[in-house]
Each structure stands twice: as C-alpha cells, then as structure tokens.
C-alpha cells in the first residue's frame, strides 16, 4: 500500500504510469470448488471428532467411515439392480407423477387466480387457507381414499407442490408493469393475446421459482406419504432401517434419495435457463 502511494505521488511530476495495486479479497481469488471442499472437510472433521470421542452414542451417530461403508453397500445394491433400485424406482415414479400433477393443477389454478377477478376474489382466499394448513396432516386421508399404493403418495406429493406453483404463476401474471399493459391495450390486443404474448412470458421467472419450490416439496410429499402410508418405496426402506436402529443405513439411504431430488431440481433449473434465457438469476448458486 505504501509502495502504491509513493508511486502515485511521484507520478504527478515525472510522467510515470500511475500504477497501483487494488486490494483484493482472498475469497474472490479462490475457486468455488476449493471453497466448497474446504467446508466439506471441516464438516467431516467435526463429525469424526464427535464420533471418535464418543460425545454421542454410536447408535445415534455413526462415524463417517461406517456411513461411507454403508453407502458403498447401498450403491452396489442400486447399481446391480437389487431390491433397493426397485424401491428407488417406485419413489422416483411417485415424484415424477406428483410433480406433473402439481404443475398441471398449479398452473391452471395460478392462471385462474392470477388472471381472473373471480379467481382472485373467490378462489384465492381458499387457496391461502389450505396453504396455511399443515399439508402432511392430510396424508392419512389420502391413504384412506387412495390406498397403500403409489396413488396416495402421488396425491400427497402433488398436494404439497401445487401451492408454490399457484403462487408463482399468480405472482408472475402480476409482474408485467403498467407500461407493458398500456402498450398491449393501445395495440388493441385481446385478453388471450395479452396473457400469452405478454403476461405469461413476463412472469416466467416467478413461475420457475414456484416450480423449484414445488420440486423440493414434491420429494417431501412422496417420502412423507411412504412413511405414513407404507408401500414399497425408498421411504419405507428408511423407516425400516430407522426402526432397526441402523443409523448408517438411514444416512446413506437419505443421501441416495437426495440425488433424486437433486435431479428433479436440476432439470427444472436447466429448463429455466433454456426457456428464460434473458433472465439472469443471481441468488442461490445459479451463477456457476
């Protein structure tokens, strides 16, 4: 810094270049993967310390190594097409069907409450009321109505994921500014033209935000449904492992399960980048 200042002051007279060093934060020069790995290593180290000094019972928290061993076992089972792969496939189907249903419902209801005065006045209050309810509490009802098969899980998953999509779509339809609305009016655009050529494309970023929240909810719904309504999915495997106090197994099952969630989420994000190419998102790891 003193060097730089000296350089600067001598520059006025002698016609030298005014070269000085701008302060750079260390973290700005670190690649993301290194920073992330560092956090991961610290986490594993803490975990190892807690288990090796037996700060908590090994039944409650297995060591990282035990967990890794079990993860390898589960991974082999999945890769060789074992019973776990079948369970994962069932859960995957529940998630996909649930999400598709939620998108169809959420999008339709979102347009109803976002575009029509009737929907906003008469339907929206009910949606808000239902949304504030603890939705997983409906699981026993869905089981009673639809049985122990995947239908009840699909229903719960869709039920949870629908609301963020409704909210995202409705908010998206309100995102267009006054000028854009006026412009479409002056061009003599019909209501449908205004909806499809202006309001919906303008609202796509909000709609995708709703889809992303929905993608997370659909996973939670499917697993909760399996916990409460049985069946042959991955949630059932977790429940059984937990009841046997097989904690490493619970951990590794959750890890593989989260890969499904991640795949769904990534698909939505990828689609968003292709479709909403003009919108640069800055929050939440979308800038890599």
């Amino acid at each position, binding site marked *: 810094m003193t060097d730089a200042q000296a350089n600067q002051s001598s520059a006025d007279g002698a016609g030298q270049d005014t070269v000085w060093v701008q302060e750079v934060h260390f973290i700005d020069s670190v690649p993301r993967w290194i920073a992330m790995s560092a956090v991961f290593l610290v986490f594993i180290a803490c975990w190892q310390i807690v288990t090796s000094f037996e700060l908590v019972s090994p039944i409650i928290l297995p060591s990282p190594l035990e967990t890794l061993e079990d993860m390898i076992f589960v991974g082999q089972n999945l890769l060789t097409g074992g019973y776990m792969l079948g369970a994962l496939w069932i859960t995957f189907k529940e998630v996909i069907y649930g999400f598709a249903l939620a998108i169809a419902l959420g999008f339709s209801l979102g347009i109803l409450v976002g575009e029509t005065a009737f929907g906003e006045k008469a339907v929206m209050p009910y949606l808000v009321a239902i949304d504030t309810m603890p939705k997983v509490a409906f699981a026993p009802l869905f089981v009673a109505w639809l049985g122990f098969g995947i239908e009840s899980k699909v229903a719960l998953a869709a039920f949870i994921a629908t609301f963020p999509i409704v909210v995202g779509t409705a908010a998206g339809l309100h995102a267009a500014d006054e000028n854009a609305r*006026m412009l479409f*009016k002056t*061009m*003599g655009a019909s209501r449908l033209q205004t909806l499809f050529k202006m309001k919906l494309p*303008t609202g796509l970023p909000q709609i995708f935000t709703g889809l992303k929240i929905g993608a997370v909810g659909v996973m939670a719904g499917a697993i909760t449904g399996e916990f409460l309504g049985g069946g042959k999915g991955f949630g059932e495997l977790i429940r059984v492992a937990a009841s046997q106090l097989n904690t490493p197994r619970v951990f590794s099952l959750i890890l593989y399960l989260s890969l499904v969630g991640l795949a769904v989420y990534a698909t939505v994000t990828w689609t968003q980048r292709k479709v909403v190419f003009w919108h640069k998102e800055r929050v939440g790891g979308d800038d890599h």
Partner: protein
Amino acid sequence: MTAAFAQDSSGAPKGAPVYELTNVSKTYARNLVVALEDVSLTLRKGSFTSVIGSSGCGKSTLLKIMAGLIPPTKGRVVLQEKPVTGPRHDIGMMFQQATLFPWKTAAENIVLPIEIRDGKAAAQKAIESAHELLEMVGLEGFENVYPNELSGGMAQRAAICRMLITEPAVLLLDEPFSALDELSRDMMNMELQRICREQHATAFLVTHSIQEAVILSDDIVVMKPRPGRLAEIIEVDLPRPRTLDMMTTPKFGEIVDHIRGLLDKGEDM
C-alpha cells in the same frame, strides 16, 4: 403530402387538423375529482405539440383519453374524423420506458403491433420494414439483438420503430426520453425531430422539461392543476430544423421564461 404541409413564414407547419379535442372533461366520479376541465385543442398534420404542466395538471389523463385508454366524461375526441372510442391502430404510443420484451429480438419487438393485429405470418412479412426503420434510427445490424444488449437510448430508438411500424396518424409520446441521461436525451430529441420530419408525423409529447418542449414543438400546451385545464397555447416560431444551438438564443430564452411564468402562477393556486 406537401400540399397539406404548407408552411408559413415562421417555418411552423400548418396542415389540416388530424386530431381534435373539443371541451373535453374528465371527472373521477368516485371521489369527485375533476382531473380535466374543458380542454380543447387541435393537432394539425405534421405538427409537433407538447403539453407541459406540474404534476396533477391532468396531462396523463389527457394522454390516456387521446390514446383511447379511458373515456372522457364530457366532450368530443375525434381522430381523422372518427370519434376515439377505444384503442386504435392509427394511434402510436411511446412511454418513458422502452418496454421492449426481452424474449424477442429488436426486429421481433418492432413487428409486435403487426403480430397482435394481423398474426404471426403478417409480422414475419413486416420484418423487412422493421429493418428499414432500424436503419432509419441508426440501429442497422441490430435486428437480431435482444433488448438486454441495447443501451437505454438504443432501446428507445427501437421503441420509436415499433411505434412507427403501423404508420399511425398520430404519435403520443409520454416523456419518452426522461429516463435517459441529459446528453443522450438532447441527442434523442434531435433524432425525434428528424424522424418526425421525415415521416411527416403528427406528434403529441408530454414532458416535464420546458427546454425540451420549446426545442421540439410548434405548439406548446401549458396546463394548470386542480382542476387540470389549459392555461395557454403557445406557438413557437423558431425556424426549422431546430438545432441545440438555438437553446442559447434570446428568443428561446424568452419563450422559456414565459412558460416558466405561467407554470409558477399555476403553482400559487
């Protein structure tokens, strides 16, 4: 065109009336606010008219009535001998924001009014005219660029093209360059003058800037607030084409002072 574009000695064009408002009033019944009272004015073919006034003088209401966005409570609003009873294709409009849609290229944005009116196929055919308009406003080669990559001034140029693509009889300009920095704004105003002259356009500008009104207009409508009404219509007899240098002439200063006087009086009430 030239016949209707006869010029008097001062250089101000005196064409046939295109847009006529007669005793137009607007009352918002819900709270009995009189937004506009007894406004009469005539826009002549090829003339440039500005309206200026403090906020609350009803100039936005006036513009919305002229655009067919809201109905007047009283009075006659007649464009090209047909009463304005809603949005019309012979009205072009431009706002403070360019309002280009980011999922469409510059050219696609420009043909949007055609797409809305006549469908996608017609819009595709109009792409050629969009290219010509872009060339006219100095945006040649930007046809396939998305609005995110355009500067504020460039975006407004594209918005001008979009307004012109349907060849409207009147251009309604709602503070079109007020979001730009002053240098770009002066430049865009001169561009606007050139474009209006080339197209023989009849233009109506809402502005907050006295200088802008004087440098661009043939007629300046000064409005008073509460209730919004006409204070005076001033004819600007500076020669055309106007240049930015004219802003330093005594005549320009006189007109600006006169308008400022009128506006200050309005403020006192």
